[in-house]
């Protein structure tokens, strides 16, 4: 009798080997006695993790996948791309990550940590891929990579690999618990800059805005059907200094329609700091012009 090849067994063995390799790039950051957050061992003394879930502390404790405790300090965080970096107090072993591009439908292994900081494993597929996109915080993300797996809160921030062991990026939560990957290319672009200066400068107006429909009677004067209504202002922010008040509806920034949010976010990149911005604003039923001086976004 000929023996059938054990394909499932072979697949399982390959996955076990992939996870064993992935573990070396995995760390867990301690949030409390019962909660950890996944992280990537980026280089011998640097961890990378998910900015949105990292508490605002300077001193951070972490544990490597083999259980070794390490401590470090926050070296920088960039909410716009969701990347935070931690500088460790001492060197640890750091395998080289070789970046890989995602393919739709490809198998993905994601490594994370459980609540106690021990390694955990997830298997899934690349559920969607897309071109570069802009986050609500204004950051450019090199590609859209969505996974079909579920992650526990403690598993966010770990590395995701393809079947060949290529590194896709860092897992994170998108809206409604959706699992996204911050692409390797984005992490590779942002991490050195964060290590060098602790932040990614962004232009800032100091306003919280909500899209609104321009009231019918003002549409003609506004030349726009939608605008961004000022919900709140940072007390000493550029918009407040320029006299913008809550309830104002911003129609355009330097001629770019408020409808085109992506373009406006792109306009407020690091090179916008120190420049003047012309805002067209509806206030009290009239369209007026306001000049604001763009400053650097303060750390949240």
């Amino acid at each position, binding site marked *: 009798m000929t023996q059938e090849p054990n394909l499932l067994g072979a697949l399982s063995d390959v996955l076990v080997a992939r996870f064993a390799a992935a573990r070396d790039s995995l760390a867990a950051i301690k*949030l*409390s006695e*019962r*909660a950890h957050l996944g992280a990537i061992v980026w280089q011998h003394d640097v961890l990378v993790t*998910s900015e*949105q*879930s990292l*508490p605002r502390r300077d001193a951070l404790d972490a544990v490597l996948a083999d259980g070794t405790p390490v401590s470090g300090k926050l070296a920088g965080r960039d909410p716009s791309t*969701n990347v935070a970096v931690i500088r460790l107090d001492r060197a640890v072993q750091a395998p080289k990550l070789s970046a890989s591009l995602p393919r739709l439908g490809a198998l993905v292994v994601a490594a994370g940590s459980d609540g106690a900081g021990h390694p955990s494993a997830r298997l899934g597929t690349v559920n969607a891929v897309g071109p570069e*996109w*802009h*986050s*609500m*915080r*204004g950051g450019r993300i090199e590609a*859209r990579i969505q996974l079909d797996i579920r992650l526990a*809160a403690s598993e966010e921030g770990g590395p995701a690999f393809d079947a060949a062991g290529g590194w896709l990026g860092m897992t*994170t*939560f*998108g*809206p*409604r*618990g*959706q699992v*996204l990957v*911050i692409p390797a290319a984005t992490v590779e672009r942002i991490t050195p800059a964060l290590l060098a200066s602790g932040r990614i400068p962004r232009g*800032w*107006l*100091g*306003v*919280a*805005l*909500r*899209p*609104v*429909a*321009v*009231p019918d009677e003002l549409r003609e004067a506004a030349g726009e*059907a*939608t605008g*961004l*209504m000022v*919900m709140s202002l940072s007390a000493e922010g550029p918009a407040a200094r320029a006299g913008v008040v809550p*309830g104002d*509806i911003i129609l355009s920034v330097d001629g770019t329609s408020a*409808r*085109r*949010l*992506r373009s*406006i*976010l792109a306009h*407020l990149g690091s090179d916008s700091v120190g420049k003047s911005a012309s805002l067209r604003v509806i206030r009290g039923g009239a369209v007026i012009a306001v000049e604001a001086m763009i400053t650097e976004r303060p750390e949240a």
Partner: protein
Amino acid sequence: MTEPAAGSPALSLRVAIVARGADRIATLAKVLQSLGHQVVDSEGQPDAVLADRQRPADARYPTVVLGGTDAEAEGLLPESAGAAEIDAALRAVASGLIVRFPEARASGFSAVQEADSRTLLTPREAQVLDAIADGLTNKAIARRLGISLHTVKFHVESLFRKLGAGTRAEAVARAGERRREETIDL
């Protein structure tokens, strides 16, 4: 004495506030008072605590945290939570329940949305909706905004249509979702 919001049970809670800055504390106190709750200090044996960003270090009472990611808090709401959500969460944690928001994870790292102008609310519709969220009747909304009852009904109908809502509660919930998705800091 403010009249209790329509539909809210008469039961009043003793709530302590933990927040930084007198302005923020005053704002939260105003919200609690408008809900008919009694603001006490942490020595006053509160039924629940309303805290900004994180729980007090000596968390002895069930706490609702606004914003942040404190996984050990009994209640976790987004920073943008409305009065009705704060009320429901305080009552739940005071009864020993755990409250989580569907998008409690800071609503997740998301792409910027370019909204569809046909379903965006006008500023007036947004004001009407805020008043609905505060539990006001159409008549009370007309009084608050200084417009006719007829105009209020017109706005309510329009915002129900734009939000795809069938009831006032649904409209408030949908609008809350949208506000979290669409509010952008520039």
